[in-house]
């Protein structure tokens, strides 16, 4: 006969970690379900790995979803060449520790033409080194599904994003023509050349990500924790000044400040925040009282109204 069990009986007393609260458990279950469904339905899935906190959670969930097996698809890192040094070190450590298949791709055209955020401006730079590079890598791998860590709460144009987000053969996203998505029944049927972006973290919020990182003891890049670091103030953003390629402009001074990052991207385009939060507890506490959104530190969102939507239509993740 059907029977129900109280929640407490489900916890193995031999485990040292306390069980996840029902909220995080529900989000985790949903994400694992999506991972398994995509892995089963598509021929060549890949997981976009950006090394940030959301990617770290995504990686952890993928390991959980396929346990005791290996993750049955490679990780793809679009390396613009302008990531924080600590991000690349962290990436390589994760690949070694968890025995991951990593594909790292840099746009050869961008590298040859020496496209940099300083010389080409953030919009063109992002278009070439991220969007175009991503399209190249997806085409080269003939991937028919790509996991991403995007969340619907991140940005207005993401709020209507599906969990399976359909893309045309040239990787375009048509917000007017998305497939309806009912229950947790996902439509993975595509023609040759078409693909799907799958977002297991769609229903997670920034606080959920941090609480999950804490509960599951997930390793993240140390830049998320406050520390005294060299910075320079530019266009209202605090830029990390450790890379020799960053040339100081007239009037700019490099100084040491206690800072941390809420999001990680390319260092010249990612602003730090002044913060003393050097533990997960502090970060979560800071977040709960935060009055600005995490994308506030991202230069690319501020180019123009509807900026993210435009990038997405063109194939940006």
């Amino acid at each position: 006969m059907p029977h129900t069990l109280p929640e407490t009986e489900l916890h193995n007393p031999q485990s040292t970690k306390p069980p996840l609260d029902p909220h995080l458990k529900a989000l985790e279950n949903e994400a694992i379900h999506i991972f398994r469904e995509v892995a089963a339905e598509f021929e060549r899935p890949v997981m976009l790995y950006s090394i940030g906190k959301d990617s770290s959670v995504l990686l952890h969930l993928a390991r959980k979803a396929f346990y005791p097996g290996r993750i049955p698809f490679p990780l793809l890192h679009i390396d613009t060449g302008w990531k924080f040094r600590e991000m690349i070190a962290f990436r390589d450590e994760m690949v070694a520790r968890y025995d991951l298949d990593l594909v790292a791709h840099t746009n050869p055209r961008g590298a040859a033409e020496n496209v940099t955020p300083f010389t080409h401006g953030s919009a063109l730079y992002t278009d070439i080194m991220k969007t175009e590079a991503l399209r190249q890598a997806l085409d080269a791998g003939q991937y028919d599904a790509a996991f991403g860590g995007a969340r619907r709460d991140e940005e207005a144009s993401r709020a209507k994003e599906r969990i399976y987000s359909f893309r045309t053969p040239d990787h375009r996203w048509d917000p007017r023509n998305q497939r309806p998505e009912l229950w947790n029944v996902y439509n993975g049927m595509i023609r040759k050349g078409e693909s799907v972006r799958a977002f297991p973290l769609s229903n997670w919020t920034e606080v959920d990500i941090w609480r999950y990182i804490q509960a599951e003891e997930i390793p993240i890049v140390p830049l998320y924790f406050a520390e005294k670091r060299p910075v320079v103030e530019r266009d209202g953003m605090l830029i990390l000044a450790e890379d020799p390629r960053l040339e100081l402009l007239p009037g700019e001074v490099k100084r040491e400040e206690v800072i941390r990052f809420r999001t990680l991207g390319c260092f010249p385009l990612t602003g730090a925040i002044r913060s003393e939060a050097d533990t997960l507890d502090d970060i979560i506490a800071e977040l709960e009282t935060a009055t600005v959104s995490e994308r506030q530190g991202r230069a690319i969102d501020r180019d123009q109204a509807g900026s993210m939507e435009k990038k997405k239509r063109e194939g940006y993740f």
Partner: protein
Amino acid sequence: MTAPAAANAALDQTVVSLPVQETARVVRDTRPLRLITCGSVDDGKSTLIGRLLWDTKAVKEDQAASLQRDSSGKQNDLGLPDFALLLDGLQAEREQGITIDVAYRYFATDKRSFIVADTPGHEQYTRNMATGASTADLAVLLVDARVGLLEQTRRHATIATLMGIRQFVLAVNKIDLTNYDRARFDQISHEFRELALSLGVRQVTAIPVSALKGENVVYDGRASMPWYDGPTLIGVLELATTRSAQTVGFRLPVQRVSRPGESFRGYQGTVAGGSVKPGDSVVILPSGMVANVTKIVTFDLVRNAAVAGDAITLVLDRQVDVSRGDVIASIDSQPMTGLAFDAQLVALQPEGIQPGKRYWLKSGSRRQRVQVQPVSQLELKSGKWNHADELPMNAIGKVHLAFDEQAIFDTYEQNRTTGAFILIDPDTNNTVAGGMITAKRAALGGIHTEESRVILSLPADLADQLMATELFASRREDVEVRRVTAGKAVNIIDAIDG
């Protein structure tokens, strides 16, 4: 904003709702509540959702600033940003000034977190509402206090009910514009209760609200409406129940088979009903083979039980043939298997649903060919089912499903996962319908032709009993019940028994 005064006043109330406390550590001891909001722009729906986000501090300063930049200073008369802009995320919509799709919003109080499916109120967008309602635990229906219930209110309530929602909140908005008219509120909520009851929904809370002024949304509106002593909207949402398929039979739709090495073979999927523990006997459908559960494997630990909603890997005690699309179920409470089922569905695409066309049907992880025969279409205005041979976009219809291979379902009423499906057009690969199983069709060859009905001649008391059952309600157009005397019934049965 009446916030500070209202917050103090709220302290002595039973349902206290304050926005996120600055110092409180968040502990979520409930699952997120998923809700859908139904109403038109005119009812102030965007303002209501904007207000919920604003008063729970889900809107950050930079977002608000970019709002003010985008809207060239357009503000409401309380100096707050234009909430509709906060919600209309896509440029195409901003240009047209309408909401064209389902958007999901997130906010939280110190007690619970919420996922809102925000769907447009236009008639032609039934599909969006059905999409949003498919995962919702509760529906908030919005009416303008000056206008009262509209035809669309009935329409929204009907769709929500059809999609399995059994908790309604009626937000009687713009109550400030009626001068907080209690009689008006009472009248609207009474009418709505009758409407909900006619749809079989008993859990109804009506709340007088001013979304613009923030009264009875997150903060209470006692200062303006001393006559109302019920909960605020957020108070109701914090206490609402989430749906659970824990009390029905165990179901595990198999997503994939995990074989990392020779020694391990596990079946991965999300428990879609009931619970399971090592030692349980299970049946694998459609093959009908039987096995026992030896282990429930997860990344963290070997668990001693799993319940509906858990993503698990199941290990069985013997070599059985199990593949993706199979369902592992409790042996003493099995789902229905068969080649013919009855269902209700919502047509989602301009092509509609064409009779006799072979579609792909996906339910859980199972995908198979199906032929769809429309039977009738719901007239949302009156609630009547009219005969139909095909279903245009946005139609809600009853259909017969005919499969080539065994299909496995529960009724949607019993299980919102194993009773739900989508139809995929093989020509376009698009999702063309969302459907809900109502019953298995008996394979009585000849009796179930499209025009004829089964005639049951029963003693009057038995006939009345049968007609009062819920199961029968969904089959009413298939069966004609004739009341006869007990003596005559005996004669009929004798004749059949030969």
